[in-house]
């Protein structure tokens, strides 16, 4: 048999462990260690699932599910797993830079190149994107009073394509190498001439799968928000998180296409000898930068807008007050979304185009600062006149306001071509975008997890451990990244695996300490989840409203039932649930129940994900039979599914009624919990609204029942 026909370019030396045997070095051992962790982790999961007999429930209740809530949770799990890998990679790079003063350190240049490439790619495409997508999935339909997204199966397919991309990147730990071209993969360095291996191909296909998944997600969410709002929910009554979700979805629809185009072009250059970005023969790498950032800049706002939505919800809830300047925030969001398509050139001011081109894009970039600044001050003003409670989510918000505005300052600096000429490609730039993405997006997602976790699982997260993780994350971030600003100004270049300048050392040491703190924060976070699961009875809040929430998602039990709303709500104002609580309308029984149609579970999505992953793997290793077979199978699944006309099942009204009435009765009977007992085990999810307490003076717990029911 012909080896290459079956295995393509795969060799036994392609496996990472071969490196450690053939060419033993610390760097190789670390690579093998990482590969082993991936393999052992996978084996451990398989064993766990087998021992606990979880295979069937996993398949039946989760992987084949098209319920937006489960899809959302799976996205979040994916994000957390990938975050663990990428944050460890970050710590490794920090350690390497610290010890590599005038020496090669413990990582080879090549290994370091793979680390910064995977770190960036994973953090953007397989941590931040799944995080925000998962959150939007879980929260948005609940907030607009919908039973699911518009296209539940498509939603599951988006998830599985993203998972396929993530798996492909995990495979690259064990089989072959990843690209060293960074997350932006600028050619001609990533062309076949200068990067002949499989690394760049891993990048291309992993990113492409993620990008297609995100396009479909954007489409799905936009239609959902346009078409699935409950009666009375006009656009301007939607919670701000839904507004930011809508804008993010629209950005996804339009911004992902250039990325797909650019990865396809790079692939054609590499696989078929085309000349889009090659040196010579009419290739033009400047167009790569142009097209990549046509996607890349909106991408920044795709990530940050949902976080802005989270901050808006958190600040209003924990200030127990209406959001300040709702309309202003909505228009600011729209401005940001539109402007984000008009600034992409600021990522390559140094390319050599005319000064007026640079200046126009520089000014456009600064203009985005206006709506962003407005938002930051809107959140500050929301707290004015409130009664602020310092929960973990709120601590993240306060930290966000202070650090994000500094990131904004450096962003405006970078918008100046003159300044950018000096600090482009230095650690200053690295510090800037981490400054926006960590306190903004990542901490926003952490705050969201603290905030909505009780809704998803029916119990709160342990508050003390949450604060502990915050007090590691926040200073950890400052220590890890503020020294980088200074290093960048001193001329320290990014993506550099060794130094020859002693002046950098103290700052790199600070940054290393910061990375250590961030790791500790992550450890606390994992511990928090584990401890909370164990103490779930003490932390339970089945009545669904632990934080005195404002939007519709808090009006239903926790965890949310399969059908979300027993009867679709009819809203008459913003902050619908808050208003209901004020007027005593909350927890009222509906007049009548109806049968509910829900989509059946289906193996379509996981199968498409599986074949997509196999297809991409075949492409990376030039295993053409696998490419052909998995491609055909992928579409066969779609076609077979299209002949299935029996895709929904009916939940009888009686069942819905029994469950919902039990919940409503329990909620009515329960005493409201005043806010000072919010973090105690008294909090079963029935809030005594702050505004009512304030109006009636201190209300004893017993009387609250009368006030409210």
């Amino acid at each position, binding site marked *: 048999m012909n080896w290459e026909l079956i295995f393509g370019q795969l060799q036994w*030396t392609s496996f990472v462990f*071969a*490196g450690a045997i053939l*060419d033993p070095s610390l*760097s190789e051992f670390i*690579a093998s260690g990482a590969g082993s962790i991936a393999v052992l982790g996978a084996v451990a999961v398989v064993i766990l699932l087998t021992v606990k007999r979880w295979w069937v429930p996993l398949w039946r209740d989760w992987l084949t599910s098209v319920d937006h809530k489960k899809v959302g949770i799976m996205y979040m799990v994916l994000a957390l797993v990938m975050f663990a890998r990428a944050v460890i990679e970050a710590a490794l790079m920090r350690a390497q830079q610290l010890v590599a003063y005038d020496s090669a350190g413990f990582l*080879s240049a090549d290994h370091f*190149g793979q680390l910064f490439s995977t770190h960036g790619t994973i953090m953007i495409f397989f941590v931040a994107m799944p995080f925000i997508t998962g959150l939007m999935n879980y929260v948005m339909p609940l907030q607009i009073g919908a039973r699911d997204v518009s296209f539940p199966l498509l939603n599951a397919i988006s998830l599985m394509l993203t998972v396929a991309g993530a798996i492909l990147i995990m495979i690259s730990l064990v089989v072959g190498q990843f690209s*060293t071209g*960074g997350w932006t993969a600028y050619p*001609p*360095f990533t062309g076949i*001439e200068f*990067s002949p*291996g499989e690394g760049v191909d891993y990048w291309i296909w992993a990113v492409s799968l993620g990008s297609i998944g995100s396009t479909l997600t954007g489409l799905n969410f936009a239609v959902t928000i346009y078409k699935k709002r409950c009666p009375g929910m006009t656009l301007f009554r939607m919670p701000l998180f839904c507004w930011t979700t809508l804008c993010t979805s629209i950005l996804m629809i339009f911004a992902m296409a250039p990325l797909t185009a650019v990865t396809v072009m790079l692939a054609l250059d590499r696989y078929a000898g085309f000349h889009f970005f090659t040196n*010579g*023969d009419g290739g033009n790498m*400047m167009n790569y930068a142009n097209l990549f950032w046509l996607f890349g800049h909106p991408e920044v706002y795709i990530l940050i807008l949902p976080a802005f939505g989270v901050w808006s919800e958190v600040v209003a809830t924990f200030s*127990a*007050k*209406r959001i300040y*300047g709702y309309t*202003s925030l909505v228009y600011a969001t729209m401005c940001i979304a539109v402007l984000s398509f008009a600034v992409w050139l600021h990522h390559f001011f*140094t390319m*050599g185009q*005319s000064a007026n081109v*640079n200046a126009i894009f*520089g000014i456009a970039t600064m*203009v985005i600062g206006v709506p962003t*600044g*407005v938002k930051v*001050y809107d959140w*500050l003003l929301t*707290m*004015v*006149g*409130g*009664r*602020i409670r310092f929960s973990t989510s709120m601590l993240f918000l*306060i930290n966000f306001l202070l650090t994000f*505005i500094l990131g*904004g*300052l450096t962003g*405006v*600096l970078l918008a*100046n071509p*003159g*300044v950018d*000429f*000096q600090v482009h*490609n*230095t650690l200053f730039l690295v510090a800037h975008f981490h400054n926006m993405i960590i306190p903004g997006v990542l901490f926003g997602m952490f705050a969201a997890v603290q905030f909505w976790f009780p809704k998803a699982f029916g119990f709160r997260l342990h508050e003390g451990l949450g604060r502990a993780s915050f007090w590691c994350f926040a200073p950890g971030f400052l220590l890890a990244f503020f020294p980088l600003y200074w290093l960048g*100004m*001193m*001329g320290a270049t990014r993506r*550099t695996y*060794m130094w020859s300048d002693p*002046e950098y050392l103290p700052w790199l040491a600070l940054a290393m300490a910061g990375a250590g703190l961030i790791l500790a924060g992550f450890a606390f976070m994992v511990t928090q989840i584990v401890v909370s699961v164990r103490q779930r009875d003490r932390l339970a809040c089945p009545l669904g409203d632990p934080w005195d929430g404002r939007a519709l998602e808090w009006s239903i039990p926790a965890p949310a039932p399969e059908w979300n709303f027993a009867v679709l709500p009819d809203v008459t104002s913003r902050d619908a649930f808050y208003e209901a609580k004020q007027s005593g309308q909350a927890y009222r029984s509906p007049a009548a129940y109806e049968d509910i149609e829900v989509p059946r579970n289906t193996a379509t999505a996981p199968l498409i994900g599986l074949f997509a992953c196999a297809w991409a793997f075949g492409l990376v290793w030039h295993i053409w039979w696998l490419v052909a077979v998995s491609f055909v199978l992928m579409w066969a699944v779609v076609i077979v599914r299209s002949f299935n006309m029996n895709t929904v099942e009916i939940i009888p009204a009686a069942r819905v009624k029994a469950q919902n009435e039990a919940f409503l009765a329990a909620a009515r009977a329960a005493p409201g919990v005043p806010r*000072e007992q919010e973090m105690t085990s008294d909090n079963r999810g029935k809030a005594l609204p702050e*505004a009512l307490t304030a109006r009636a003076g201190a209300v004893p717990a017993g009387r609250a029942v009368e006030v409210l029911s």
Partner: protein
Amino acid sequence: MKLILGVLGAGIPGIAHARGFLDPAGPIASAQLTHFGVISALMLLVVVPMFIALPIVLLRYRRAGKGTYRPDWEFSWGLETLIWGVPVALIVILGSALWKHTIENDPYRPLGPDPLVVEVVALDWKFLFLYPEQGVATLDLLTLPEGRPVTLKLTSGTVMQSFIVPRLAGQIYAMAGMQTQLNLLADETGEFTGRNTQYNGLGFAQQSFVTRVVSPQDFDSWVASTKAQGQGIDFAGYQALLEPSVIDQPVLYGSVSPGLFDQVIASFAPDMVAGQGHAHMPAPPATAPAALPAAGASPTPHHHTPEAVQ
């Protein structure tokens, strides 16, 4: 502003910022630093209020605080005008500063009559500097006369790179088959580090060079002494340099074949090498200059360790 940053730097032990634009040695870098300072100072207008107001708000409106609880307060025209108006006004000011600075400091704009022209070819992992008027060339050494405008013309013999000498001017990309420009001027003598900042493979970390600014007389004598060296460079010699390598010591060439820079650019145009424009990479290292001791490492896959310099 330079002063403020200088004081800040001096306050921290061990910081002499010997490199970086914090200590500019020419008008361009100096203007960039000033601009940096002006923008930062103006931005404090929106940053400082947050740092002052947030603690006050948190203190006043915490649950036990003195602030009046107004759960339904959500709008004020006065505040609205302020939070939209101030940023807009600020952006108008910042935007005009940006426009002026960007147009005036266009890297293509010559800084005076009769500039010294130096042609720069970015290679894997070194820079080739050609002095067409003087007829000399160097590898990883940029010698410049103090006080005379310099026009750098840049191209690449390999992947895209980004050229910077932070204490003199900002960076610009160098790309194969194309020519970018960077104008700068040094107004003090000394040795400044320059480097490539765009990742280009294994030797990237070590791809730096010395920029030596000397008095005009010293420059002339440097040219003369370089010319006296026997070794020259022509297109074949250039092709030998395409082999990726890091070099320890600068290399001097006493003569340059005329039009070498244009030949380098043209080598990526097919009219000249008929469709073979990019096929130079595996050129044999036959005539590598003697002072090229480094471990040439071709980026083969499945091979982790070819460190450039251990």
